[in-house]
C-alpha cells in the first residue's frame, strides 16, 4: 500500500514534469529574506526538465521494482514489514529533493537541496542498520556533506564579490577573475564529490550496502546525478575559467580510467556496476570540461542514456540475487536460458552502456566522440580508450551472468514486479535507438541551459567512415580484445585494485577519521573527567584569550578610574555586599552556605543593574538567580550527606579562579572605561520603539526588531528540551 502510493506520487510527478516540459516550463520566485538577497528562485527549464523527468520517471520504475523487492529484502534479513515505513518516505523525499535541486536557480538554494539529497541517501544507505551499512551511510554523508560546504563557501565568495547568489544574475555580472575561478573550483569540488569522481569516488562502492532499489535510484537519477546536475547548472560560470575546465577534464578522464579498471577487477555484481558509475559520470565530467555546445549536448544525452541503462542493470543484479541467492559473478553464469526475458532486457541495457547501434547508447558515444575530436588528438585517443573500457567491463558483466555454463540454479522465475521495470527500460533504450528525436530534444533543451545559448543536438546514424564511426569501431575492437584476453587483463586489474587498497583515498579517509576520533576522545577525556576539569576548560582559555588581547592592544588611556558621587552610595553598598558574598562562597566549606552566598551575590548584582537603568536585565538576573538557587537546594536536599567532600588541590583551584577573575576584571574595567556609544543601531532602536507601539526598548527588540533571532532561539530551546527528554527518558515527553 505504502509502496504503491509512492509509485503513484512518482507517476503523478512524472506526468506533471512532462506536461511542464512540453508547455515550455515556467518559474516561481518568492522573496524569502529580500534584505539578504535570499530568494526561493525555482525555474523549470530544459535542464530541470531533464533531471526532474529522470528523478520521477526512473523513480516510478524503481519504486515499482521496490514494491516487489522490499518485502523479499525484509523477510530475508529478517525484519518486520512495518520497517517499510523507514524506506518509502525517504525514497519519496529523495525524489522530491532531487526535483527541487533540478529547479533551483540560486546557489544557496542549490546547496540546501544538495544537502537534502545527502540526508535522504544517508538514511537509505543505512537502511539495513548493520555495521557495514552504517559505516557506508556515514562515509557517503561525510564525503558528500563535507565537500558540499565547499559549495557554500564558493557561493559566499561570489555573493561578496557580486552581491547576489542568483545564478542568472551571476552569469551576467561575474568576470573571469580569480574570485570566480576560486568559487567555481570550490563548487566543482562539491559536485565532483557528489558524482563520485576520483579521488573522492570511494564512498560510492561502499554505498552498495544499500538495498538494490536504493542503489539503482542513487546511481541513475538521484544522488550521483546531483553532482553533474550542479555542474550543468553552473556551467556558464565555470566556462569563464579555463583552469576549472581543465580540472574537470583531468578529473573526468582519471575517473573514467579508475572506475573502468576497478570495475574489471570486481567480482560482486553491484560492485562492478558501482565502479562503472564512477567511470560513466567521468564521461559527463569530461564533457563539461571540454566545454562548448557539442559537449553540452553530449553531456545531457549521456546522463539520460546512462540513467536508463544503469538503473536497468542494477535492477537486473537485484533480480538475479533474488532468484539465485548469489551476489558474485564467479558463482553465476549461463542464466540466459533460464531467465530469457531478463537476459534480453538487460542485454539491451548493457548494449546501451557499451554504445552498440540500435540502442540509445550509440548516440551518447557518437556525440561524445564528436566533442572529444573537437578538443584535439590526446583527448580523442583517451575517449576511444574510455569507450573500450566500458565495452569490456559491461561485456564481462552481462556475458558472465547470462552466457557460459550454468553455475547457480535459479530457485524461481523472476517475479513480474522485478522484471517489468527492467523490460520497460530495455524497451525504452531500444526505442531511443530507433527514434532518437524526443530524447535529443530533451537533451538539447538541457544543453541550452548549460550553454546559455542555442544548442543543436542532432544525433543520427551515418553510414560512412566519419570520425565518430571510426572511433566507435576502434573502441569496440579494443574492448573486445580486453574482454577476450582475461589472462592478461586479470592480473593487471587486480594489481591496480591492490594498489588502491594500500595507498588509495579510502585508506586516507579511514586514517583521518581514526585520527579525528582519537583526538576527540583525548580532549573529551581530559575535559570531562571531573567537574573541575570542565570548568577549567572554560575558565583557562577565557583567561588566556583575554591576556592575549591585553598584550596585543595598547592599554594607555583605556583604563579609567573615574570619580564617585554621593548618589552612587547604594551601588557601592551592593557591590561591597556582592564582594563579601563572593569571598564567602569561595572560602566556606559547608554545602548550602556557599550556594546561598552565590545567590546573595547574584541578587546584589541584579540590584546594581536595576539602579544603573537596566530593569530588564535586572528582572532576568533575579529570575535566573532564583532558578539557580532552587536547583541547588533541590539537588542538595536529595544528595546523600557524604557526596560532597572537601575539594582536593585547592591551590590549583585558587590559581585558576584568580586568573579567570583577573581576566574578567581587566576586560570589564576596560569596557566600562569607554564612553558609552549611543549612536548607531542602539539609538535607532530607541527612536523607533514608539513606532512599534511599545514602551520598553528591550522587549520591542526581542519581539519585533530582532524577532527573527528570537524565533530561531525559541526553536533551539524546544530542540534542546527534546534532546534532554531523549537523553534522560528515551524520548518520552512525560
Amino acid at each position, binding site marked *: 500500500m505504502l509502496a504503491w502510493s509512492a509509485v503513484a506520487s512518482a507517476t503523478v510527478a512524472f506526468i506533471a514534469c512532462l506536461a511542464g516540459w512540453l508547455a515550455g516550463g515556467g518559474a516561481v520566485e518568492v522573496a524569502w*529574506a*529580500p*534584505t539578504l538577497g535570499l530568494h526561493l528562485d525555482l525555474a523549470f527549464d530544459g535542464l530541470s526538465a531533464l533531471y526532474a523527468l529522470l528523478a520521477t520517471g526512473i523513480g516510478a520504475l524503481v519504486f515499482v521494482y521496490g514494491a516487489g523487492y522490499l518485502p523479499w529484502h525484509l523477510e530475508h534479513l529478517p525484519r518486520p514489514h512495518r520497517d517499510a515505513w523507514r524506506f518509502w518516505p525517504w525514497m519519496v523525499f529523495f525524489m522530491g529533493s532531487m526535483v527541487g535541486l533540478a529547479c533551483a536557480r540560486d546557489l544557496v538554494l542549490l546547496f540546501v537541496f544538495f544537502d537534502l539529497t545527502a540526508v535522504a541517501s544517508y538514511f537509505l544507505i543505512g537502511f539495513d542498520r548493520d555495521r557495514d551499512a552504517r559505516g557506508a551511510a556515514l562515509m557517503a554523508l561525510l564525503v558528500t556533506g563535507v565537500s558540499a560546504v565547499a559549495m557554500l563557501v564558493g557561493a559566499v565568495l561570489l555573493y561578496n564579490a557580486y552581491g547576489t547568489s542568483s545564478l542568472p544574475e551571476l552569469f551576467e555580472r561575474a568576470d573571469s577573475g580569480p574570485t570566480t575561478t576560486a568559487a567555481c573550483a570550490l563548487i566543482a569540488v562539491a559536485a565532483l564529490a557528489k558524482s563520485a569522481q576520483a579521488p573522492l569516488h570511494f564512498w560510492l562502492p561502499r554505498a552498495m550496502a544499500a538495498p538494490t532499489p536504493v542503489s539503482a535510484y542513487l546511481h541513475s537519477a538521484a544522488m550521483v546525478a546531483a553532482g553533474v546536475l550542479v555542474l550543468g547548472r553552473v556551467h556558464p560560470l565555470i566556462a569563464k575559467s579555463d583552469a576549472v575546465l581543465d580540472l574537470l577534464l583531468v578529473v573526468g578522464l582519471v575517473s573514467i580510467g579508475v572506475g573502468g579498471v576497478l570495475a574489471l577487477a570486481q567480482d560482486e555484481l553491484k560492485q562492478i556496476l558501482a565502479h562503472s558509475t564512477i567511470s560513466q559520470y567521468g564521461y559527463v565530467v569530461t564533457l563539461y570540461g571540454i566545454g562548448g555546445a557539442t559537449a553540452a549536448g553530449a553531456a545531457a544525452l549521456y546522463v539520460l542514456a546512462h540513467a536508463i541503462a544503469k538503473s536497468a542493470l542494477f535492477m537486473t543484479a537485484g533480480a538475479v540475487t533474488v532468484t539465485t541467492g548469489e551476489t558474485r559473478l564467479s558463482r553465476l553464469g549461463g542464466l540466459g536460458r533460464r531467465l530469457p526475458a531478463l537476459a534480453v532486457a538487460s542485454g539491451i541495457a548493457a548494449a546501451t552502456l557499451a554504445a552498440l547501434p540500435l540502442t540509445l547508447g550509440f548516440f551518447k558515444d557518437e556525440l561524445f566522440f564528436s566533442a572529444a575530436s573537437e578538443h584535439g588528438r590526446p583527448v580523442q585517443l583517451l575517449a576511444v580508450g574510455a569507450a573500450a573500457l566500458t565495452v569490456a567491463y559491461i561485456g564481462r558483466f552481462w556475458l558472465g551472468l547470462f552466457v557460459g555454463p550454468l553455475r547457480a540454479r535459479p530457485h524461481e522465475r523472476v517475479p513480474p514486479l522485478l522484471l517489468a521495470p527492467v523490460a520497460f527500460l530495455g524497451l525504452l533504450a531500444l526505442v531511443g535507438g530507433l527514434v532518437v528525436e524526443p530524447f535529443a530534444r530533451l537533451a538539447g533543451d538541457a544543453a541550452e541551459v548549460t550553454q546559455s545559448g542555442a544548442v543543436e543536438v542532432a544525433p543520427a546514424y551515418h553510414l560512412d567512415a566519419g570520425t565518430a564511426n571510426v572511433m566507435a569501431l576502434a573502441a569496440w575492437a579494443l574492448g573486445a580484445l580486453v574482454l577476450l584476453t582475461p589472462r592478461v587483463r586479470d592480473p593487471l586489474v587486480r594489481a591496480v585494485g591492490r594498489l588502491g587498497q594500500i595507498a588509495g583515498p579510502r585508506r586516507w579517509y579511514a586514517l583521518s577519521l581514526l585520527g579525528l576520533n582519537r583526538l576527540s576522545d583525548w580532549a573529551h577525556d581530559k575535559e570531562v573527567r571531573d567537574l573541575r576539569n570542565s570548568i577549567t576548560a572554560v575558565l583557562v582559555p577565557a583567561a588566556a584569550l583575554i591576556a592575549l588581547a591585553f598584550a596585543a592592544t595598547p592599554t594607555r588611556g583605556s583604563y579609567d578610574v573615574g570619580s564617585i558621587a554621593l548618589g552612587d552610595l547604594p551601588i557601592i553598598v551592593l557591590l561591597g555586599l556582592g564582594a563579601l558574598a563572593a569571598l564567602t562562597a569561595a572560602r566556606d566549606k559547608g554545602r548550602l552556605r556557599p550556594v546561598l552566598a552565590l545567590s546573595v551575590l547574584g541578587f546584589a548584582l541584579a540590584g546594581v543593574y536595576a539602579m544603573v537603568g537596566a*530593569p*530588564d536585565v535586572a*528582572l*532576568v538576573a533575579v*529570575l*535566573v538567580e*532564583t*532558578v539557580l538557587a*532552587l*536547583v541547588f*537546594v*533541590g*539537588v542538595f*536536599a*536529595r544528595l*546523600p550527606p557524604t557526596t560532597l567532600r572537601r575539594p582536593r588541590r585547592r591551590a590549583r583551584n585558587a590559581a585558576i579562579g584568580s586568573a579567570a577573575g583577573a581576566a574578567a576584571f581587566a576586560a570589564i574595567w576596560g569596557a566600562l572605561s569607554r564612553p558609552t556609544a549611543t549612536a548607531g543601531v542602539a539609538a535607532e532602536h530607541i527612536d*523607533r520603539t514608539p*513606532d*512599534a*507601539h*511599545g*514602551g*520598553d526598548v*528591550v*522587549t*520591542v527588540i*526581542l*519581539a*519585533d526588531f530582532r*524577532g*527573527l533571532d*528570537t*524565533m530561531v532561539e*525559541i*526553536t533551539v*530551546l*524546544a530542540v534542546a*528540551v527534546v534532546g*534532554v*527528554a531523549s537523553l*534522560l*527518558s528515551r524520548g518520552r*515527553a*512525560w
Partner: protein
Amino acid sequence: MSVILEVVCPRLLGPAVMVAAAMIVKGYGDVGDGFSAGVVVALAVALRYVTLGAERAERSLPALRFAPAVAISGLLFALAIGFFPVILGEPPVTHYPRAGDPVVEIGTLELTTAVAFDVGVFLLVAGSLVELVHQLARLVEERRP
C-alpha cells in the same frame, strides 16, 4: 522540609501565575516579557517539586503533564505569528498593526501581533522549563537509594 514551607510553597503558584499574566498584559509597554513570565510560572512549579518531591507534586497538580503539549503549541503559535506575514507578501516577523496605525487597547493590554508572539514565547518557556524540571526530578528520584 519544614511544615511552613510545605504549606506555603504550593500556594505560591497562584500569585506566580498572576505576576506572569501581569507581565504579559503590561509587557509591551513596560519591563518584562514572555520569557520572564514563563520563568516565573516555572519557578513556582519548581518550588513545588523541591518541597513536595516529584511524585507528590505531580499528583497534586495533574495538569502539569500537559507541559510538553503547552511548550510545543507555544512554539508553533509563535512561529505561526512570525511567518504569517510571508503569506501576505511581507518579510517574516512583520507585526500588525503597522507603525502609525491605531492599536486596540483593553485596559493596558495592547492587541498587537507582537503581544501574541510574546504569549507563544511564554507558553514555550513555561512548558519547556516544567518539562526540564520533571525530567531532572525523575532522574534524582530514581537515583535515590
